[in-house]
């Protein structure tokens, strides 16, 4: 099977280890992975900040870049949610017929990572080994926009050595919300404080998720407060095997 990786702008810049993990994981599962060097951003930051015109031009760029691609994999649920929930409106309003047609054809071929593994590849046991206590944060977009449901849990359940700790109030927002985290920094921090209490109370060593944006927010507070925990993208857990232990430097 062939697939093309859309790494997303912030993973490319800040979290390349997530991308490397996706490559390692998918190639181990027999996927022929491709990477389009001209990719940049899905437009979510502009769309959520009220810059519709700018968001549209990035949406158009992404559709044009991937319109001939068999399958696109994205290790970020909020970017997939942007494409599924906001592109139809943006392209419907500002695009022409040809773009609308190409987007409609591309949309069903775009997968979030856990969707790709379970729905497209049909695997739950990816052969991972991660001997740590881990809690899973169900990010807002994963739960309420993509309806990922139990997919991440099914993947985690098959990781050897992993001790999964249940996170109370699992689907409550961590307070990141993109530019919300700086526009409403104090409210965002109050939300983060409440979330972190739940996360730390699990006694886990790692908090994982399918969105590095939430994890960047959580890890920022963990580091500031010497909370004694780390964050790690689910792809990095799934990529880890006995032969190649995780670096988990975050």
């Amino acid at each position, binding site marked *: 099977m062939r697939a093309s990786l859309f*790494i997303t702008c912030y993973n490319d810049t800040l979290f390349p280890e997530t991308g490397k993990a996706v490559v390692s994981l998918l190639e181990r599962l027999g996927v022929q992975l491709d990477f389009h060097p001209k990719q940049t951003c899905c437009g979510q930051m502009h769309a959520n900040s009220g810059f519709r015109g700018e968001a549209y031009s990035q949406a158009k760029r992404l559709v044009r870049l991937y319109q001939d691609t068999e399958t696109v994999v994205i290790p970020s649920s909020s970017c997939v949610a942007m494409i599924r929930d906001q592109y139809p409106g943006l392209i419907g309003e500002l695009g022409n017929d040809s773009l609308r047609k190409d987007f409609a054809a591309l949309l069903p071929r775009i997968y979030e990572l856990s969707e790709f593994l379970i729905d497209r590849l049909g695997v739950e046991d990816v052969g991972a080994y991660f001997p740590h206590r881990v809690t899973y944060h169900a990010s807002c977009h994963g739960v309420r926009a993509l309806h990922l449901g139990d997919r991440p849990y099914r993947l985690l359940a098959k990781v050897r050595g992993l001790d999964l700790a249940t996170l109370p109030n699992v689907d409550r927002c961590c307070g990141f919300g993109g530019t919300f985290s700086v526009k409403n920094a104090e409210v965002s921090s109050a939300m983060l404080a409440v979330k972190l209490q739940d996360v730390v109370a699990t006694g886990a060593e790692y908090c994982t998720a399918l969105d590095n944006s939430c994890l960047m927010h959580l890890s920022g507070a963990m580091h500031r407060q010497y909370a004694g925990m780390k964050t790690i993208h689910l792809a990095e857990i799934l990529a880890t095997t006995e032969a190649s232990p995780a670096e988990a430097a975050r």
Partner: protein
Amino acid sequence: MTQAAASHPILDPVFAPPFPQAALPVLRNPQLRKNVAHAIDVIQAKRAKLVAEKTDWQELRSSASAIRAHALENLGAYLEEFETRCTAAGGTVHWAADAPEARQIILDILRRENATDVIKIKTMTSAEIQLNPILEAAGVNVFETDLAEIILQLGEEEPSHIVVPALHINRSQVREIFSRRMGLKDLSDDPHALTAAARNYLRQKFLTIPTAISGANFLIAETGGVAVVESEGNGRMCLTLPRTMITLAGIEKVLPRFQDLEVMLQVLARSATGERMNPYNSLWTGVTPGDGPLNFHVVLLDNGRSSILSKPTERQTLKCIRCAACMNACPVYRQTGGHAYGSVYPGPIGAILTPQLTQMRHAQSLPFASSLCGACYEVCPVKINIPEVLLELRSQVVNQERKDLVRLFDPMYLGLRIANLLFARAWLFHTAQFLGRIGIRFFTRKDGWIHSLPSVGGKWTQTRDLRGFPKQTFHEWWASRPPAPGPALNKEAK
């Protein structure tokens, strides 16, 4: 006056400070945050339990949404039908284009009745038009009869929630207010003692004041009737004892048929208070001699609503049935409570309704007072896609603001404009990544983390660290990989 302004939150979008600023005193107030979070958690748990027992909840939501959407699409016709039926049944219908007109209509009715006192059922619409202070200024004594509203009125507090307006006040604070204002020295904070005190206070009012003001949960076009649901029976007293009843209702409150209540009352009670049915459901049509008020007036309030109705994305805002499930589910509201929203309508619905009611002239920080987590949309019984409307309003605010020259130097605007240029060309984006990696080194400590950033970045680092930029971006790593057949990790694939 200055003292009052200092001690009261300002629930007028025209004068209220922006949301991030208005939220600060609450975030620093442990008692308030504890009260709000506790109350919300209790209501949320009750709602979740009662929603779970309805196996057809999603179908109910779809029906409720369709009923409300249909009513709005044909609003003019249904309002006229309501007017005709209500008038035929002995009621008088008044049309008010805005708040001043609605207040004048109500004042004129009260003057004709020579009313010096008036009892009220909880109505957020009357708070929207700031009715109480105007009536008081005109020499009419206003007595709230809903327990929470009594607490607010006697405690000189402002509502912080649309269903449980005194949610930010706990039992011992209620005891203090009642004890002070009712002269009850030995009052305990036992709920029975507190409700008994309120009952004593109210009974006299119900028996002596012949004029009442209510809101409406629903107006029924088919019958010309009005529906009010409540939990305490105070509404039933106000609707039956007085000689004159004035009902103030937003024009969007109309339902086509009596039968629609079957769906609406189910979703409203479960969403609002976590009950299968509201304890008191009052329905009345016009005037019935010997039974209830002899004079019945309905004031239909526009106040910005028809302008909302004309816009396709925003129109859904008017489907709202004021159940408050969105604010109970909102992680932002859970931290800030209602006052920070600077409006009688707080929470996610307030964040979309308030700026629109002011024709987008005020409350422009509210569409940004959300992390877009979607919890509001998930629970909304009439399926208002609040995140979608928030985004639409954000883009309207930006379209207004970006014309200002001063925004050229606003770091947020500048950053987003530059980012847009970079994202259009990969080579520019990659150059910016390279330069950013060098620049960020000046802020990165030896531990590899950024503890302090200037400008907008400082809003992040005031409470959070940020990991320093890695030495290599992903696309650089990809380009540096040896061509296939790749390293050991490719073996199984081959």
